[in-house]
């Protein structure tokens, strides 16, 4: 053994005072933690470090990706044929549904025009892939292969085929990190489809459970109720399914019900997700991020009555959401115009329950004696600034 020489080295090292070194390292890490927790100073640093570590994640993902590739390529011919047949049947059924949806949508737009409220513009989506990487075991976080270069931005909503998955929390150029709806730090503004009751669904740290902690004992909610995003807060577009209520427990002596829900998206089997570009958000976000989006959205309604197009940024064709409300007559929800972000544009996906359950929402929208129909954004924008905060507070308590 080389113990003796190493010992002498150790003594020499001790003279160089590990205490001082530890003091320095500790001070550095405390400063880093403070900056990372309290502000956005380190976003850029994190982005660079994240892209440095991205190859590692890709490497880790590669066995899983390889296995999938093998499965797809080695599949038997018969299986491919049957799969093809089922997919074709599904596509047929879906397109039949879509036809009906188009009619409903046109009808909905007409009604909304009659009510003088804003028309819902179809959201644009991009497909992202979740890397098979286990992140921090204590959080429900995933790593995506789409980042700022693909137009993804912080706060962007993620959905899958069956419901809301989460939102992007950190953009790292070529990749990004997202928080799942079941993370204890996550909160989604939701409403109950049956009666339009609005509340907030918080993550619990359990992939199969969301909790709705802010419902009073007399709230009208029961097991089996479908929860959809309410669109308040601005982060999530309205109308996407979030989950179904599983248990409603009023037995505790609390003023609030204990309500649990099961997430609609299959969070434990995620492979591909859709990044949703909200048309209103698309005005400001591709360049900036969630931080710059809120002020921009808040500023729009003020300037709107005077010159409708002036607030739209450089790219000349203003996104439909900014233009359409100015003239309620022309509210045909036409094919969504594709804008700057050069991302892969997949077919436009519609929020399923499009008819925005009336009793609660509609009065608030119509009762505002607004100059134009652009009355809807202010509450949205204001709530948008507030809602991440509420989520955090809820979690810290």
């Amino acid at each position, binding site marked *: 053994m080389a113990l003796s020489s190493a010992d002498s080295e150790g003594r020499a090292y001790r003279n160089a005072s590990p205490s001082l*070194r530890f003091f320095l390292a500790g001070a550095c890490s405390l400063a880093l933690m403070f900056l990372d927790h309290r502000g956005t100073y380190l976003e850029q640093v994190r982005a660079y470090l994240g892209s440095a570590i991205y190859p590692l994640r890709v490497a*880790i993902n590669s066995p899983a990706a390889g296995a999938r590739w093998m499965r797809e390529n080695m599949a038997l011919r018969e299986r491919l044929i049957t799969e093809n047949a089922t997919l074709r049947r599904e596509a047929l059924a879906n397109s039949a549904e879509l036809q009906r949806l188009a009619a409903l949508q046109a009808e909905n737009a007409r009604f909304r025009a009659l009510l003088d409220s804003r028309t819902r513009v179809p959201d644009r989506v991009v497909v992202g892939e979740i890397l098979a990487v286990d992140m921090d*075991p204590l959080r429900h976080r995933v790593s995506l292969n789409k980042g700022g270069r693909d137009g993804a931005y912080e706060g962007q909503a993620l959905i899958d085929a069956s419901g809301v998955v989460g939102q992007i929390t950190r953009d790292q150029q070529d990749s990004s990190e997202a928080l799942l709806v079941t993370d204890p730090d996550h909160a989604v503004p939701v409403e109950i489809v049956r009666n339009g009751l609005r509340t907030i669904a918080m993550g619990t740290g359990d992939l199969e459970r969301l909790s709705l902690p802010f419902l009073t004992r007399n709230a009208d909610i029961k097991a089996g109720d479908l929860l959809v995003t309410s669109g308040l807060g601005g982060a999530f577009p309205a109308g996407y399914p979030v989950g179904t209520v599983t248990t409603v427990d009023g037995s505790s002596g609390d003023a609030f019900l204990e309500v649990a829900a099961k997430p609609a998206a299959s969070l434990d089997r995620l492979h591909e997700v859709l990044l949703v570009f909200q048309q209103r958000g698309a005005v400001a976000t591709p360049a900036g991020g969630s931080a710059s989006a809120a002020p921009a959205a808040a500023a729009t309604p003020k300037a709107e009555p005077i010159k409708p197009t002036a607030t739209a940024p450089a790219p000349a064709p203003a996104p439909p959401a900014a233009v359409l409300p100015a003239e309620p007559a022309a509210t045909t929800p036409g094919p969504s115009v594709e804008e700057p972000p050069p991302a892969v544009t997949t077919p436009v996906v519609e929020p399923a329950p499009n008819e925005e359950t009336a009793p609660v929402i509609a009065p608030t929208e119509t009762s505002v004696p607004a100059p134009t129909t652009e009355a809807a954004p202010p509450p949205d924008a204001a709530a948008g600034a507030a809602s991440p905060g509420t989520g955090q507070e809820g979690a810290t308590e």
Partner: protein
Amino acid sequence: MRAPRWPVWLLVVLALVAELLPLPAAVQPLRPAWTTMLVIYWSLMWPGRFGVFSAFLVGLLVDVAHGSLLGQHALSLSLVAYLVLRLHLQMRVFPLWQLTLSVFALMFLEAFVLLWIDGATGRAEFGPARWGPVVAAGLFWPILMAAMDRLRERLERRDSSFA
């Protein structure tokens, strides 16, 4: 000629990969914290060349890879390295079982520091995902120690300062 240090850093990268590899949910809580074990081993055996600052760097890498608060693991690993440096002369003459116990204690302390920081930023969580890695590290330590000893002896054989 001094023994090269890059194999240690290569091991650190491999440890990061091992910590990020997807595992079935059932065994996930028992995934050992490889990076912490590496920091303990190398600051124990090469105190002159793997110290507090190296541990700090490893911690930063871990923070970025896991997406945790930047500086969190940097602090906890610096602390672990510092304690090992202070105690390495005693620890090295320990028999294996005693050494394993002290490694266990160090890992426990590190987990506690991480928990404390999580609590200060509002997300303290107890449970198997927090303490599983500590237990697993205790179980895996003898194996890691045997493997690292062989590697270290090969590196030191080429090193005149260890002769």
